[in-house]
């Protein structure tokens, strides 16, 4: 399941890359890519907007290195833990930023990394729980210098 979605994402990456080269207006298609990515994560589930925190600066001087911390209110036990956390950009050339995989051995559902933001936009995060529920949070970031130089 996870591998299938990942394979799909890699395929989507190739398509978006090609269209950016050949069609300047390809950016307008970004929204559809985000919707498909989110639907792929939710898989028919309705996300709850409680219990998940996305901590990110509201203004990022450098879009190439935007720090973010994601925290989930979870006991991280065998019966009740976070299994995955997905980060989605709503206005990057490719929506997928990365996916964390956690286990009960994590002990604490908090992760930090740095992401690329091509432009000022909303960043979405989704946490999948062992019981099948999914949580959603979002935050806006204003980017001074875009992060898509490579």
């Amino acid at each position, binding site marked *: 399941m996870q591998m299938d979605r*990942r394979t799909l*994402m890699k395929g989507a*990456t190739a398509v*978006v*890359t090609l269209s*950016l080269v050949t069609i300047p207006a390809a950016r307008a298609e970004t929204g559809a890519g985000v919707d498909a990515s989110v639907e792929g994560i939710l898989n028919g589930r309705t996300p709850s907007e409680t219990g998940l925190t996305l901590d990110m600066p509201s203004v990022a001087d450098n879009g*190439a*290195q*935007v720090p973010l*911390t994601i925290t989930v209110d979870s006991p*991280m036990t065998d019966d009740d833990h976070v299994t995955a956390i997905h*980060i989605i*950009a709503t206005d*990057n*050339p*490719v*929506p*997928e*930023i*990365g*996916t*964390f*995989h*956690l*286990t*009960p*051995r*994590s*002990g*604490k559902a*908090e*992760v*930090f*990394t*740095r*992401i*690329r*933001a091509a432009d000022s936009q909303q960043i979405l995060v989704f946490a999948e729980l062992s019981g099948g529920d999914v949580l959603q949070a979002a935050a806006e970031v204003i980017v001074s210098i875009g*992060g*898509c*130089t*490579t």
Partner: protein
Amino acid sequence: MSTPRVLIPDTAAAGEVIQIRTLIDHPMITAVSSDLPRDMLDRFEVTMNGEPLFAYDFYNGSAENPTFTFFARIDAAADFVFVWTHEDGETFTVERSVAIG
């Protein structure tokens, strides 16, 4: 490519949740908006005593020189293996151990 860096305590109390920080020098070139050849890590995986602890799938929005902070609950002495895998299959591995103390 320098040796990846891992910050992890040498000892922990039984039951303690420890913080782990990692950093690997890597350009993470997506080739979306440049003519450079694509040069991206694919996955970062951490095991504790052979069991999965933490992993991350890299997509284009992952920043250059990927860094992570995450946690592990130490119930007994633990051997950690940290593996970064490039899209071309090359791997970079760091091993660390945490004793009870």
